[in-house]
């Protein structure tokens, strides 16, 4: 419980980094994405994260978590199949 509160506090305490320019985001205005948006170096992106900021580690961590949860779901699925076989007398191929 303490940990959850701590995480929540951390989340809340992150300052708003965004430069808010709400006038630019006018409703109904369609912004066409062009190649220049991909090459626009004036906008800050996590470029250094990609070069030496070890972003792959983050990708790896998220993948491990996702695949771990998936593994758990597969186990539940198998257990259900087994008990379905017992309850309904079906032949289950797992």
């Amino acid at each position, binding site marked *: 419980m303490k940990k959850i509160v701590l995480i929540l506090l951390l989340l809340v305490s992150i300052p708003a980094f965004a430069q808010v320019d709400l006038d630019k985001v006018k409703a109904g205005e369609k912004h066409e994405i062009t190649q220049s948006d991909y090459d626009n170096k004036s906008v800050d992106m996590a470029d250094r994260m990609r070069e030496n900021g070890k*972003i792959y580690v983050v990708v790896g961590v998220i993948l491990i978590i996702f695949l771990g949860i998936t593994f758990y779901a597969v186990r539940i699925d198998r257990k259900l199949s087994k008990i379905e076989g017992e309850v309904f007398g079906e032949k289950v191929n797992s």
Partner: protein
Amino acid sequence: MKKVWWKVLAVLLVTYTIISGLLLDVPRLAILNETIRNLHFHVPMWFGMIIMLTGSVVYAIKYLRTGKIDFDMKSVELAKAGILFCVLGLLTGMLWAKFTWSEWWSGDPKQNAAAICLLIYLAYLVLRNSLQDEQQRARISSVYSIFAYAAMIPLLFILPRMAESSLHPGNGGNPALNFFDSDDQLKMVLYPAVIGWTLMGVWLAELRVRYKRIEKTLEEN
């Protein structure tokens, strides 16, 4: 595990989404910056919710036509998975809004409508739990879920678009996904993400349906 292929597909698609969603080049847009990648994670929650709630209402109608309780089970479990995705969509949207619209909750038409939608569906669960008799519960809640679905469509797709101004893309007299819509490179991740996450949600619903079936059979014997 019966018919395992779609579960494998779900895991593969979400795995692809995580890798390419975080690593591929994205348009460099002011204010959005790297948060544009949320498109691949926040938006699929809503697509998934809509698809699962559509499934839910289809099974509700099937139940009303046939009276088979199995359809009602599928209907309610799809609705529950849809509600889970709705909550996740609201929370991720709030976090995203904090750093791009500067407030967790700015009372944007889309935010408000999504919250009302969540309340309508939570009332569906309350209604179900308040009824004892199985057939009565199934019938009343099926009818209510048709109403809930019919209320959700204008709330999410029509009213936000009629609003004078909305920060949310795809609103304010503007159909579709606004600027996200025009970019093929983003779609290459977004569409697989939508399919992958929806299948994950259906998998969760399927697990619960099977659990309920076993429970019901054991109760009857």
